[in-house]
């Protein structure tokens, strides 16, 4: 999960008030306190309460819904958080370079052995020896589809696991009336556009950025909105036909539509031309007030029987190889959550652009969205 969204204002305001309120109540007793800052809807209902019972540590749990909000707090310094959950690329990559995290004390993480070695290896290029970051969940960015409505428009023969639903001007023109949304995220959208055109998605030159922007501009008129979380509701309610979004979010939309029994059948596809794969990790800020408690919480989350119910709840795959057997069969066998090998072969790992390249991308993105 990576980008920024619109609930941000609300969420960060909430978080501030919560932090203020809880800081006050915490000072009343001398109990040990842990300040956690995580994505919204990214943990099971019981997890925190169970941890508090098991450890005696009081958890102050705040949520955000964009890496950018988290990043702004961390870079400003003295965030007061002991444990945060940013996305590895490009965020943790540049945060490690900026020196804002502290090294893990692996001796305190006895459950570290349960982690999937392949996922640890996949992070080693940005975090040598996995010194700073512990992987939490991973997922992909692909497309969510209202199956019945899209089939009614394009016919039964049209394959649905392809970016051409969005980036082929002829096809997206047919779907426009029914509603197409793109994420409000330059990195994700440009990576998808590069994948559709079979271009190198790790080339951040001006020429490459212009090419991706051109691909999007050709279908700009067919896009209803750019947003990174609104599509969950709209897909579930039938207000959208095609949404570019995170695997777990689209699967939540699918489950909500099924619960509401409103006739909308939502499905997630990781497009065959390539889907971005990302990993969210747990890291401890350098100025964390209570790094010891942060280690205790990480170690708790590394227990297979703790992380498995979280995956059941959030519909994202965890990085714990010993937890897979404990996960509900329906979740474990869901190709949207645990994709088969042939789908994994098409996953794209994004490199981190330099700050200057990232700014060029974001400014090109603003121009594109606003039609300038």
């Amino acid at each position, binding site marked *: 999960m990576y980008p*920024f969204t*619109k609930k941000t*204002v*609300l969420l960060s*305001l909430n978080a501030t008030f919560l932090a203020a309120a809880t800081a006050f109540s915490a000072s009343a007793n001398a109990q040990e306190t842990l300040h956690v800052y995580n994505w919204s809807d990214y943990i099971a209902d019981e997890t925190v309460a169970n941890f508090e019972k098991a450890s005696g540590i009081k958890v102050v749990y705040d949520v955000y819904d*964009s890496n*950018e*909000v988290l*990043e*702004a707090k*961390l*870079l*400003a*310094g003295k965030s007061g958080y002991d444990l945060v959950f940013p996305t590895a690329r490009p965020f943790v990559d*540049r945060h490690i*370079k*900026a*020196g*804002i995290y502290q090294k893990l004390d692996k001796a305190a993480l006895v459950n570290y052995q349960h982690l999937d070695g392949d996922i640890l290896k996949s992070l080693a290029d940005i975090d040598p020896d996995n010194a700073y970051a512990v992987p939490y969940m991973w997922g992909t960015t692909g497309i969510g589809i209202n199956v019945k409505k899209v089939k009614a428009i394009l016919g039964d023969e049209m394959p649905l696991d392809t970016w051409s639903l969005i980036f082929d001007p002829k096809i997206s023109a047919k779907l426009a009336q029914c*509603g197409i949304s793109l994420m*409000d995220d*330059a990195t994700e959208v440009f990576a998808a556009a590069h994948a559709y055109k079979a271009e190198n998605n790790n080339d951040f030159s001006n020429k490459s950025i212009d090419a991706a922007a051109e691909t999007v501009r050709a279908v700009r008129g067919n*896009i*209803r*909105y*750019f947003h990174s979380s609104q599509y969950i509701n709209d897909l579930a*309610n*039938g*207000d959208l036909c095609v949404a570019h979004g995170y695997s777990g979010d689209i699967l939540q939309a699918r489950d909500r539509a099924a619960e509401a029994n409103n006739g909308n059948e939502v499905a997630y596809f990781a497009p065959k031309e390539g889907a971005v794969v990302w990993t969210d990790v747990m890291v401890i800020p350098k100025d964390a007030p209570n790094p010891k408690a942060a280690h205790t919480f990480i170690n708790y989350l590394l227990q297979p029987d703790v992380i498995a119910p979280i995956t059941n709840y959030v519909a994202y795959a965890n990085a714990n190889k010993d937890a897979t057997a404990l996960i509900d069969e329906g979740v474990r066998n869901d190709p949207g959550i645990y994709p088969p090998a042939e789908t994994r072969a098409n996953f794209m790992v994004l490199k981190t652009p330099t*700050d200057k390249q*990232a*700014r060029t991308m*974001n*400014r090109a993105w*603003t*121009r594109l*969205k*606003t*039609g*300038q």
Partner: protein
Amino acid sequence: MNPSLSGNNPLAKLSGRGLLIGAPWFWMGVFFLLPFLFIIKLSLSEAALMQPPYLPFIREIEDGLVTLVVNFGNYSLLFEDPLYWKALLSSIEIAAIATLVTLLIGYPMAYAIAKAPKAWRLPLLMLIILPFWTSFLIRVYAWIGILKTNGILNDALLGLGLIDQPLEILYTPTAVYIGIVYSYLPFMILPLYATLIRLDDTLLEAAADLGCPPWKQFLTVTLPLSLPGIIAGSMLVFIPVMGEFVIPDLLGGPNTLMIGKLMWTEFFNNKDWPLASALAAVLLVVLIIPFVLWQHFEKRLEMRQ
């Protein structure tokens, strides 16, 4: 008479007055000038990958040797890249149109309240102020439910058979205008009401006695005399709308380009705090212009009287 007391008196008076005048100056200094100087300082530094994400203004190059590094690059980028002045122009346009619409809706409402029987005025004013008791964010969110494709408005219009196809209002500039006019209407009505209620009715009677028809009474007496209210209301709407972020973000479509949203992008997506600060400084300068014009106008009005 005690000479020491009489000698103290003017001093005591002076310090009392000084305190009274000093309090707002102190307030402005601490909560406006100081933060603004921080912004200016930040806007002259350079973004960098560190904590906090910019290079300090004053750097130590060798032991004790300090250098002051001033970077005007952020300001020059604002003028070189058309995106920024287009966003500024677009914000001015949106704020101007929204202010005009708010005035056209707010004036008759303020007028009606001022002319209403005395017992009605307070309840009517309460109805204007009442929405403030709910959070601004919640009220803007409510408009999403009203305006969306399968929302309350479209359902009602479809149900009444007035339209065959749902109207696409949400995520368009129209939705932004609806949101702004709705949210800022009280700021227009209250100063207008305050001016209109103080109008001397005998002036209208005199005009009527001299044979002036009601519409001309309004144009030549009421309207000019309510000008201070119109200007105060328009400033209260125009200035905050210029920097508005929440309404275009929640209700606006991707093509709503406003300076507030651009600042958000620079601050959060680009981690470019210095550029965002430069944008804020430029916005402030642009907003000071109508304020200076207002003061100038007020002075002229006073001189005429």
